[in-house]
């Protein structure tokens, strides 16, 4: 056994601290190592000094008064829960909290605004690139149309859908018309019926397998006419965002 280990173990002198087999090893070592034996004696003296302290137990003066004071502090649980609730709601409505909440709201609105503006600009740019690349279609370059797209970016999505002809499935039409936000719920279906009757060929356009000449022609005529009609409605009515 190493002296280093023995000089640690001598401090584990109380009954449940050193298992029997270790104790026996330590005793054998101490029997032939005077330095470790001296350390063991010192540890024993420390133990006796500490034992003197252990025998002195600090006593609580006035235990009855102490119990009373604890019981006064420990209120019934139900009552305490209510108090905690009041504290929390009180804090929430505190002036400082209102200040913080207002500040955070302003920051959130600012971030949302910046995100929306940049997202709209990106949408229009993407739309233009996609149309040019996939279908060879350029957006009208008239200042009015570009201004319209800038102000009503959701109509940009509409235009994409018009050119991709997905607009003309009943579901996507409904989505787009709904997205414009200019029709009341009971007007939407009437408007869809109106589109179906006024632009009958649009529903046959499918861009998933690419556009053929006929489909391009339909988009250029009926598609463009529908776009103009929708744009004029949006111009006249505005969108929910505008309102």
């Amino acid at each position, binding site marked *: 056994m190493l002296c280093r280990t023995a000089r640690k173990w001598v401090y*584990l002198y109380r009954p449940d*601290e050193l298992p029997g087999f270790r104790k026996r090893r330590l005793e054998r070592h101490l029997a032939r190592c005077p330095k470790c034996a001296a350390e063991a004696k010192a540890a024993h003296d420390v133990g006796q000094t500490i034992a003197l302290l252990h025998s002195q137990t600090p*006593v609580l003066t006035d235990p009855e008064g102490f*119990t009373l004071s*604890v019981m006064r502090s*420990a209120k019934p649980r139900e009552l305490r829960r209510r108090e905690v609730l009041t504290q929390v709601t009180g804090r929430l409505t505190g002036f400082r909290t209102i200040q913080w909440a207002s500040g955070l709201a302003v920051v959130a609105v600012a971030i949302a605004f910046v995100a929306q503006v940049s997202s709209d600009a990106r949408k229009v740019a993407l739309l233009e690139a996609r149309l040019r690349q996939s279908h060879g279609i350029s957006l009208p370059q008239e200042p009015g149309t570009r201004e319209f797209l800038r102000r009503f970016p959701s109509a940009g999505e509409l235009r994409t859908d018009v050119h991709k002809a997905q607009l003309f499935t009943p579901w996507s039409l409904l989505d787009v018309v709904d997205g414009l936000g200019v029709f009341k719920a009971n007007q939407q279906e009437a408007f869809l019926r109106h589109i179906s009757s006024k632009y009958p060929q649009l529903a046959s356009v499918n861009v998933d397998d690419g556009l053929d000449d006929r489909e391009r022609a339909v988009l250029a005529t009926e598609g463009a006419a529908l776009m103009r009609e929708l744009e004029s409605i949006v111009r006249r009515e505005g969108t929910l965002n505008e309102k």
Partner: protein
Amino acid sequence: MDPSFPDTVIERSRRGESEAFRLLVERYQGYAYALAFRLVCDEEAAKDVVQESFIRVWKHLPEYRPTMKFTTWMYRIVVNLSYDRLKTDRRRNRLMRNEREVEGYAEVADPTSTEQQITNRDLAERITFLAAGLPVTQRLVFTLRDLNDLSVQETADILAISGESVKANLCYARRAIRKRLEQLDVIREYP
């Protein structure tokens, strides 16, 4: 610790019965106080710690699971609060010491102290003397094991450390105390 204390009292306290909780406080306040006092070495601070501990016990009793001994669970709360108290007191003492050095402040013993208070103060001085300079874990282990006479396993459970760690900390703490006693000629210095 009294092992015959009925579990039903703890169970009733868990359900929120104030009367049962009062019995619990009466039964354990002495033990909790002895531990807190040995840790913070100050009568008033120990009372504060114990009071706060019982409030926490009351508040968190519904979360207590009997897989752990109630006393172990309660001691853990007392130890944690005492530890917090020690930390804040240490910080405050540092400030106070600076102020006293500036103002030449001298502490005077309260002449109205009772005999028990004087005994407590004497004990506090001895413990402070022995445990001064011990790192926190060693101090906690030393107090729980050597002064409060808890088993190695119980000490480990309260401090949420292993039994081996308790023993290692005990070795270091007792060795440091030995050095301190030797320096002050309380025990003989061995070669």
